[in-house]
């Protein structure tokens, strides 16, 4: 049960488990963002959930095409901001009114007005750090090892190539059927990605 949950949580980060034969999934290349968007729609409509698209830049409408909801990063950022505000308040109150109060012309040891700037700055600081930490956590980054890196074609994903990857961990995954689906959706090339990097990547026609 817990394993199942962990697997699903990791799948939301794009981290999938390979099957017994070390198959990680099928990687298909598409010609442009439009083709990739339509392919993602087709893959989702065919009932897959462990799949992801890879592109050099974010593609508008892809979240909807893949059936992804809103990003949860905002909660992390909000949590950070509230923490920052509380730290800013408690730090100034505790140091100047509790730990070492200094009486200056009978003024109050702690007042909210002069404490606002530091509270404000710490709210922003922690909110920003929370956003980044949340982004990394939800994305499962840093992730130095990724079986997709075995694919030579995939090196162009950060340049000008568009890929769709269906993981072998998906319940509907089947080497032949899934490859056929990808080819029908207009893939220029489909290759099998092995987790151990052992297999030669197979061209579309031989699958």
């Amino acid at each position, binding site marked *: 049960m817990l394993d199942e949950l962990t697997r699903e949580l990791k799948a939301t980060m794009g981290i999938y488990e390979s099957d017994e034969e070390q198959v990680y999934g099928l990687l298909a290349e598409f010609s442009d963002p*439009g083709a990739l968007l339509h392919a993602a729609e087709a893959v989702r409509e065919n009932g897959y959930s462990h799949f992801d698209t*890879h592109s050099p*830049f974010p593609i508008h409408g892809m979240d909807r095409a*893949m059936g992804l909801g809103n990003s949860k990063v905002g909660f992390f950022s909000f949590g950070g901001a509230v923490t920052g505000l509380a730290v800013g308040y408690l730090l100034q109150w505790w*140091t100047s009114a509790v730990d070492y109060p200094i009486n200056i012309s009978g003024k109050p040891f702690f007042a909210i007005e002069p404490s606002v700037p530091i509270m404000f700055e710490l709210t*922003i600081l922690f909110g920003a750090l929370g956003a980044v930490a949340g982004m990394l956590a939800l994305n499962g980054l*840093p992730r130095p090892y990724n079986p997709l890196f075995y694919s030579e074609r995939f090196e162009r994903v950060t340049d*000008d190539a568009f890929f769709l990857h269906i993981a072998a961990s998906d319940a509907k995954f089947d080497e032949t059927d899934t490859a056929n689906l990808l080819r029908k959706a207009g893939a220029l090339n489909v290759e099998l990605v092995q987790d151990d990097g052992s297999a030669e990547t197979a061209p579309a026609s031989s699958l």
Partner: protein
Amino acid sequence: MDNTTSQPTADQDHSAGHSHHESLVKGDLSFHDITEMVSRHTEKKTPLAWYVAFGLASSMAGLLLLSLAYQVWNGVGVWGNNQPVAWGWPIVNFVFWVGIGHAGTLISAILFLFRQKWRTSINRAAEAMTLFAVMCALIFPTFHVGRVWVIYWTLPIPNQMEMWPQFKSPLLWDVFAVSSYFIVSLVFWYVGLIPDLATIRDRSTTWLRKKVTGFFALGWTGANRHWRNYEKAYLLLAGLATPLVLSVHSVVSFDFAVSVIPGWHTTIFPPYFVAGAIFSGFAMVVTLMVVARKIYGLENVITMDVLEKMNIIILVTGTIVGFAYITEFFMAWYSQVEYEQYAFINRAFGPYAWAYWIMMTCNLISPQLFWFKKLRRSIPVMFALSIVVNIGMWFERFVITITSLHRDFLPSSWGYFEPTFIDVTTFIGSFGLFFTLFLLFLRFVPMVAMAEVKGVMPEADPHYYDEGDGRAAGTSVPFIQPAQEDPGRNEAGETRGGR
């Protein structure tokens, strides 16, 4: 309307800003061209000219190191600071450098929130400039405290005095504001860099380069599940950096405005300082970009339209700053406070009148040339003016700091401030540090945000491919085409982006 002749059915949401007559990227470049254009400067053999420039800049940075060492050894007395002008050049330089930094955040955060897509070509370099300018700025107050080895007393860390910092002081607010600003700017810059570092990683041919860039790229694969969180985090960072940047220069202005010195104690300071900061920062970005786009052949990305827009912002903020100068006179007159009135008359006609009129000429009058389209689209004019503006903005801080202090309430304590040789070498040296860091940036980091530039090209819009290419237009029916037998890479490249 955004609809153009080439994409009549394009989704309007997505094509906003892609109007045909002002496309953001010129020269009919493909995605790969952008990658190539930017990445190759980090990959090619280092040109001789870079070494020459780097040698020059780092020698100047060495001068900074020597000046600071001399200052630490002998004490703050080696600077011109004295009574009545206890805040001399160090504070002038601090405000000057922090101000320059603000343009980077403005470009990366505020223009992002306003969906100004032209920012993508310059935001990376402008953010780098922010970081380096803030580093230069931090040097000055750090050494100005006199005992630099106990600078950590400004932070709430238990120390040998068993005392805490004075949280009611604007100077301490400054510590928090500027250091938060530095950290947030660094994080913002780095987050923006991740996809581009992955590009460099995937292109690298040597083992070491792959490992180093791979380490910093964090395993980025351009996954849409990642882009989704990434874009949200980027938006949040922009939303948080916007109030932050406005607050930082406001807090810097509190250093002056919270005191009771005539000429400092005014409520106009925060907005006036922020406008001045944007003004000087944009001028610095223009100075750097005009040179960099020429040397690195980036004219098609950092286009004349982008530079023109920056010059318009310089014109607007310069006029705001000039208006603030005049408002200060009005406030002094209207307040009917003798000391306040004297402070301003002394600024314009006293012993520092020369500095005041340099400031007025450079900041209020010279940017007005940008009303003329021809002038704001002329490279020599904008380059010269951007330098003039930064001279003017340095003098603004000089005028504010020095003239208010040199004659205060009691005529017996009046004096005239003069900088020393070490003041000058420290300031020149700070430019050395700035240019050293900037040259390292140009050499080792992709200087244009490739992923962002690609994202604003019309070809990045999935609906760009709906028409004329045999694809289904405006429906969710996926286009089905048979897989090609053995598609080569080049073939894939050619089908992309063709009109």
